[in-house]
């Protein structure tokens, strides 16, 4: 949750305050979430994302930030660059599908496809036993 918030806000002090808010929201909503329709991870991530976007009041990402996130060498090994850019713009920089489509100048249907294919490629690399990336693409966690 902190990684998502920090990527969107880029300010450690504000990010910590937002993380605190996000946890309070989770606590207050704990009886409203239906885990038959959702998972804990999805619920936590979307709460963190909404809290961060509410904090900055818009979905914004400078091209420098996108470049910085795209240049990560570990992520290069995992994902095709075009899938990675879409995933980072949406997951880490808090952009909507439409805004990502505007930034990348490609239709939103292509953004959705790239997002799906990118995540699907990540899913293929997960070892079902350990729930981590398989040995050849090990990442220090």
């Amino acid at each position: 949750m902190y990684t998502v918030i920090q990527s969107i806000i880029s300010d450690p002090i504000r990010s910590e305050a937002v993380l605190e808010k996000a946890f309070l929201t989770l606590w207050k909503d704990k009886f409203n979430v239906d885990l038959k329709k959702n998972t804990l991870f999805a619920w936590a991530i979307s709460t963190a994302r909404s809290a961060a976007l509410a904090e900055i009041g818009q979905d914004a990402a400078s091209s420098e930030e996108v470049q910085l996130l795209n240049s990560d060498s570990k992520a290069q090994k995992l994902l095709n660059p075009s899938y990675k850019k879409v995933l980072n713009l949406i997951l880490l920089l808090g952009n909507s599908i439409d805004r990502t489509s505007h930034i990348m100048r490609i239709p939103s249907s292509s953004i959705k496809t790239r997002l799906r294919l990118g995540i699907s490629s990540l899913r293929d690399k997960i070892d079902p036993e350990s729930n981590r990336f398989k040995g050849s693409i090990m990442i220090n966690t």
Partner: protein
Amino acid sequence: MTLQEIRVSGLLEQYVIGAIDQDQKEIVENAIIEFPQLLSDIKEIGTALEQYLTIYQESPTPLLKERIISSIDSAPAVTPTSRRLVTSKTKAPSKSKSKKNNPSDFDLIKAIGLSLAGLFLMSSLWLWISSNGAEEKHQIVINQLKTDIEKEKEINNGLQLQIDQLGELYKQNNKIYHMTPARRYPLSRLYLIDVPDSQKKFLHIGNLPPLPVNGRYQLWTVGANGQVATSAVISESNDFISEVEIAQSTSLILSIETNPDLVRPTRRNIVGSFSFN
């Protein structure tokens, strides 16, 4: 939607990230009820993203955990938790008591009596807690509605003020300068309205590009001798009107800046400029 259609739609991925609108969210949640196997897809997507996020993982300060726990502790209690606590506390003593004594008929009747009394007390307590919870929820909804109404009033007042200001500003005898937008931001609109009656100048902006994190719209004045100085900081990106003080300046520049200590605008971040000579 069929199971396959929902899987290839990309909606599940958007659902997990939270980049989804309410209608699409309902589609996904209805599909999960219809096809429970989608929940394992959602878990797999979550695991993949969780692992992906570890690449960019950053840790907050160690004290934050304690701060969060203490804020949760001081948050108002949630009703179902209180109910559970009451049940566990009241059950425990009666169990230990029954183990100690060898019950006679009288003891048995006393025990049944006590249990019934306990049950009555527990039900009353439970009803009291539930009604308090409902009342609390009701109060929260009312407060939320009041806040929403207040906000709406504020927005309406703001809009009315803008309409009045615009009507006043775009009168025929006022001089209007149009900004030349930078090539990078062709859609931005910026007007300077010179009102000769009041000797005041107003800036009307619209459709400015979105700000980066920690960024702001900075207005700069340029004097006749070419000297650049910072002027106002603009907080809104669209339909914003503000009075500006341009003194002896010959032109204005609007740029997007992240560093408040700059003495000149960053060339590549200039949104537009205009001269009124």
